[in-house]
């Protein structure tokens, strides 16, 4: 059996393990370990006496991965981003944002929905995780919308969908993970998420306004705030602006001077600022301890998937499956853009059943080299490439699109985590209600993705300033 065939069998085994409910991280590690044994044993011609040797080598090879792969400076951004999010709850930043948004844009048709979208986008700028963001806004925004007579499905759908902005707008754990898998500049990817995130928020808001204008009973405007009240609401939301500015200035200085540091330092400084605000707002040991424990739990969850999947990826390296897949993709007789769209469709289907991080980690080691090859390879110039950009540009562009795809999956049935969370927080809403309310945003997301595919400049403008693409 060739190593490619071994690779395919092991991958099938991995899917079977996931289907019978084995936790994704462990399923991937187990598949990788078995695959390594298989590869090493096959090198010795399946000699019965060599099986124990093959097992020892495989176990020791896999046993290196957890320590070796998590000991990375770039990955240290992830726990920091998670910590910022938890501290931000204690600092009371979410409520302040929603209040400010309500007073400024509540007068629009579907005004509270629009407020939710923009407040969530603002909170996304300090939170690295989508699910947590939806959970928070389900508690804050939905009761207010229901009190103003908003349609409950509509209200729930807005919250579930807007929560997905957290993974596009930096800081974003998932963008860091993408950058590391594909070995691209983390700062450039974080920067690249900004405009598409804002673009996505504007599309959501437009969608809300449009729907509220057509179906008047979905959600009325909320008016009657004086300019005094509007300005009074700003200071509470100001810390978010500071944190966002710090993170931006540590990645890229928009005024043309030196940036102030590295993304890891910017993230840490932002977290420190939010920590001080939380202290000032009355956080004490009890709250600090639960923020710390929640940070530890979510970080460990993410890192366990990372090292588990990387054991599988180490096996793929020995089996050389990525190279084979890339060759196969290139051998297809169709325009590269068609192949790319097919890959995106595959992600949409896969995403219906999988969670975002696991899906990206499992697929990118194979898919990413193929996409780069599709574009014309590592050394291609923008002019000669299939998608009109060099390899670095293609890596960033594809990354943002794929992360947006993964986020879309958080609101699609049957397994849309954000919808479950929103339904869980509000007893008056069933999961079906939330899925139905979120379905128009499915269309909005499809539009966003089409926009990103058709106009790569939306993605590449900011990182281009940093990298000079």
């Amino acid at each position: 059996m060739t190593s490619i065939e071994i690779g395919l069998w092991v991958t099938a085994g991995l899917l079977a393990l996931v289907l019978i409910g084995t936790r994704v991280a462990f399923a991937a590690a187990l598949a990788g370990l078995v695959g390594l044994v298989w590869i090493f044993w096959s090198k010795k011609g399946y000699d019965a006496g060599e099986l124990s040797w093959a097992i020892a080598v495989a176990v020791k090879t896999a046993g290196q991965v957890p320590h070796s792969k998590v000991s990375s400076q770039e990955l240290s951004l992830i726990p920091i981003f998670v910590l910022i999010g938890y501290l931000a709850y204690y600092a009371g930043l979410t409520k302040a944002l929603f209040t400010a948004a309500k007073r400024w844009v509540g007068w629009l048709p579907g005004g509270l929905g629009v407020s939710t979208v923009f407040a969530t986008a603002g909170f996304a700028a300090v939170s690295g995780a989508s699910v947590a963001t939806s959970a928070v806004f389900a508690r804050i925004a939905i009761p207010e919308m229901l009190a103003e007579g908003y349609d409950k499905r509509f209200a729930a759908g807005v919250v579930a969908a807007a929560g997905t902005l957290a993974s596009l707008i930096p800081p974003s754990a998932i963008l860091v993970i993408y950058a590391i898998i594909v070995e691209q500049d983390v700062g450039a990817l974080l920067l690249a998420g900004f405009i598409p995130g804002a673009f996505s928020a504007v599309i959501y808001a437009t969608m809300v306004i449009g729907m509220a204008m057509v179906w008047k009973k979905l959600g009325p405007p909320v008016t009657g705030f004086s300019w005094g009240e509007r300005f009074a609401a700003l200071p509470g939301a100001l810390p978010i602006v500071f944190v966002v500015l710090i993170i931006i200035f540590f990645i890229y200085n928009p005024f043309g001077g030196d940036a102030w540091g590295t993304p890891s330092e910017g993230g840490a400084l932002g977290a420190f600022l939010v920590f001080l605000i939380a202290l000032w707002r009355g956080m004490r040991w009890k709250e600090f301890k639960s923020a710390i424990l929640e940070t530890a739990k979510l970080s460990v969850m993410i890192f366990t998937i990372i090292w588990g999947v990387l054991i599988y990826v180490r096996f793929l390296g020995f089996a050389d499956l990525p190279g084979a897949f890339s060759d196969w993709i290139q051998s297809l007789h169709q325009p590269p853009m068609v192949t790319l769209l097919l890959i995106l469709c595959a992600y949409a289907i896969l995403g219906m059943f999988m969670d975002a991080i696991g899906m990206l980690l499992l697929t990118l080691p194979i898919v990413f080299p193929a996409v780069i090859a599709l574009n014309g390879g590592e050394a291609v110039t923008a002019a000669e490439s299939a998608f009109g950009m060099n390899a670095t540009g293609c890596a960033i562009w594809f990354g943002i699109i794929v992360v947006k795809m993964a986020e879309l999956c958080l609101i699609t049935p049957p397994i849309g985590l954000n919808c479950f969370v929103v339904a869980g927080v509000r007893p008056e809403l069933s999961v079906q209600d939330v899925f139905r309310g979120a379905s128009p945003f499915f269309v909005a997301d499809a539009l966003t993705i089409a926009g990103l595919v058709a106009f790569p400049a939306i993605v590449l403008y900011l990182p281009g300033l940093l990298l000079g693409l």
Partner: protein
Amino acid sequence: MAGSSSVLEDGSTLSRIDRALFRVETVLALFGGLAVFGLMLLAVASVGGRNFFNQPLRGYVDWIQFAMPFIAILGVSYCHRLGGHIRMDILVGRLRGRALWLFELLSTLLVLALMILLLWGSWAHFGRSFDLGRPLWSADSSIDIGLPLWPAKLVVPVAFGVLCLRLVIHVIGYARAFATGVERPVAVPLIEDAAAQAAHEAEAVSGFEEDAR
């Protein structure tokens, strides 16, 4: 995708062992969380030192790499006790009673086998970096300031060892449930319906607004 679940407790020996181990797991997770906080302070010190005293922290990257296994791995069993590791329960979630416990037992046994092997492999990884006969017992050190790496490598087998104990508890719990056919056994994570599960997720962020005032 389930990200959390609940564990029932009673006065049985298994449940008492479960809770005792959970206390150990919580302490380990707390260390991991404090390491995140330490990482943040380290970065602040580094930026401050550089900009205000022209004295950057020597070996900043080495220290981060050293701290990461504590953050990433020490709490692995804590997370598992709380059912925090992501799984797809769309199929097993439909099973009830013995059929469910059989699948859970099977999958837990596989994970236990995996973790015992990885315990061996990560211990060997630690062993290659540790040598009692050398200064600081170090046979592997970091690139810039030569920090001995064995403590960071030791974290992995320690955390995996605790996880193995946790998995043994789960194996016993599921095996007993399969034997007796009970509907809701103790000391193992139970699959929740979507609503209960989401309520659990949300619990993590609930009460913050109120508490914070």
